[in-house]
């Protein structure tokens, strides 16, 4: 049904757009692996050099700590809230659940200003908590929405059977409902991880100490200080992007599904 010419044209278009999508990524990889324009050894040696000069050891560690905290805490809270909204009669659910959905739309820009000045009063700016807790709150909005959909899709007989066996609601959640929900939970976890790892505005406002900088923030500062060339900056950019990109390459279906089905997050 499809002519040879049409097929060739389709492949040409496919190739053209794949090139457009890959070009900036390949360009930065090529720069990161190329000769060092600031006089270093070049090649793979650019990565340790950038790691050293950009002080990525510290900022990557902060990012790992913040991401782990946000993913675990927001994950557990979302599973609990989603469980209640999905399988129980929560009082005022008609108001409470839409209020959670509202959080999918609230832009970080609007909350970061009062957050900074209010947390300053409590001495929480420039702390791990000031960076992590607002992101837990934002992730909980998506997580509750996402997990509720999963729990609603479970057959009620499953919960019923657990109850008849005398299992507490807590045990029904963690031993009966959560294990088969791994795909939904993995999707939530990878998305929360990506959003937290890539977040820029909250750490920019909250972290004044260099020791609290997250990886993207560290890269931004590296760009400001390191003006002798592009090579090490490109290497630093690759280092910062790598964790999420690697997870994406392995679990891309979760990323795509989550971002399309949970499309209303921001």
């Amino acid at each position, binding site marked *: 049904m499809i002519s040879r010419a049409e097929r060739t044209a*389709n492949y040409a278009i496919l190739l053209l757009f794949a090139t457009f999508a890959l070009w900036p990524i390949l360009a930065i990889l090529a720069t990161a692996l190329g000769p060092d324009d600031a006089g270093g050894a070049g090649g793979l040696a650019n990565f340790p050099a950038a790691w050293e000069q950009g002080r990525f050891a510290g900022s990557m560690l902060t990012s790992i700590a913040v991401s782990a905290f946000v993913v675990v805490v927001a994950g557990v809270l979302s599973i609990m809230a989603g469980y209640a909204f999905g399988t129980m009669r929560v009082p005022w659910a008609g108001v409470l659940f839409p209020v959670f959905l509202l959080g999918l*739309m609230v832009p970080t820009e609007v909350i970061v200003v009062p957050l900074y000045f209010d947390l300053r009063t409590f001495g929480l700016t420039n702390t791990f908590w000031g960076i992590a807790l607002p992101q837990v709150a934002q992730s909980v909005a998506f997580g509750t929405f996402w997990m509720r959909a999963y729990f609603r899709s479970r057959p009620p007989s499953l919960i019923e059977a657990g109850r008849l066996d005398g299992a507490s609601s807590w045990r029904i959640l963690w031993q009966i409902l959560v294990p088969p929900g791994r795909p939904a939970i993995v999707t939530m976890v990878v998305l929360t991880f990506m959003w937290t790892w890539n977040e820029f505005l909250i750490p920019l406002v909250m972290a004044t100490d260099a020791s609290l900088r997250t990886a993207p923030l560290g890269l931004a500062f590296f760009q400001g200080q390191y003006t002798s060339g592009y090579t090490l900056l490109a290497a630093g950019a690759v280092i910062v992007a790598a964790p999420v990109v690697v997870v994406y390459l392995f679990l891309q279906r979760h990323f795509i599904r989550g971002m399309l089905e949970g499309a209303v997050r921001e």
Partner: protein
Amino acid sequence: MADTLVASTARGGSAARRDRLGPSPWHALAYVAPALAVYAAFVLYPLGRAVHLSLFDWDGLTLATFVGLGNYVEVVTDGDLRAAFGHTLVLIVFFALLPAAIGLVLAALLTRARVRGLPFFRTVVFLPQVVAMVVVGVAWRQLYAPDGSVNDFLELVGLGGVTRAWLGDPTFALPAVGVIGTWVQTGLVTVLLMAGISRIPDQLYEAARLDGAGPVREFFAITLPSVRAELAVALTLTVIAALKTFDLIYITTGGGPGNRTSVPSYEVYNRAFRLGEVGSAAAVGVTLTIIIFAINLAVARIGERR
């Protein structure tokens, strides 16, 4: 914590009946409470505080003066702020309309054509979505540099005359940032629309071909109407992305040259944390939030009507 709750309900007189009906309402609320507490403290309360702050003239340190809706009047009358919102309109073309147009054509071609290598293509075009915006900014700054590959490419194809420092050019800085947005968003839109098109039954297309419809008529008669819902979602996501370009602007241009690429999200940061105009920053943030809510509401309405 929940275990003790379970224990206390089980001790109640009508434990057997509760078992059949499921946990009591207060029990259910206990599961929601931790999430609600964090969410209320770090999203809802700040949102209310932003509205409150937006009614004051405050530098963040000394005593605040109540100015009513003065900061909102400024959003409409202040030249810089009007420019920032105007720039957003330009960015919407690049972040939302262009990707929608490109995505529609790409998705229609690829889904119907049954070409090989689609999974690879999907992985590749979606990749920009997962790369940190800061990294995207660093990568494109390099491409746009006077000795960067954009200019190399232009010279290669004989357009050496138009080469320039793209992000430093008063006329071209904003479109240059826009193209980055097109790069980031096209994959998302394409993948979203591909999912929609693959759900269209083949019989529709077969019937159209029998009626002698060409690919173009087929596109407008079948494909486009069938993916209206997906297109609405895609436009919502990308328009909102265009409204929230803080990271990208911060890394690539810092709002410059002059204020040629300043956007509302950058103005919020700039006013609150650099200029000491906290009230004005809050008002811009609240305005941004209202616009985002309105877009979501409008799209939800369109979705309901169908």
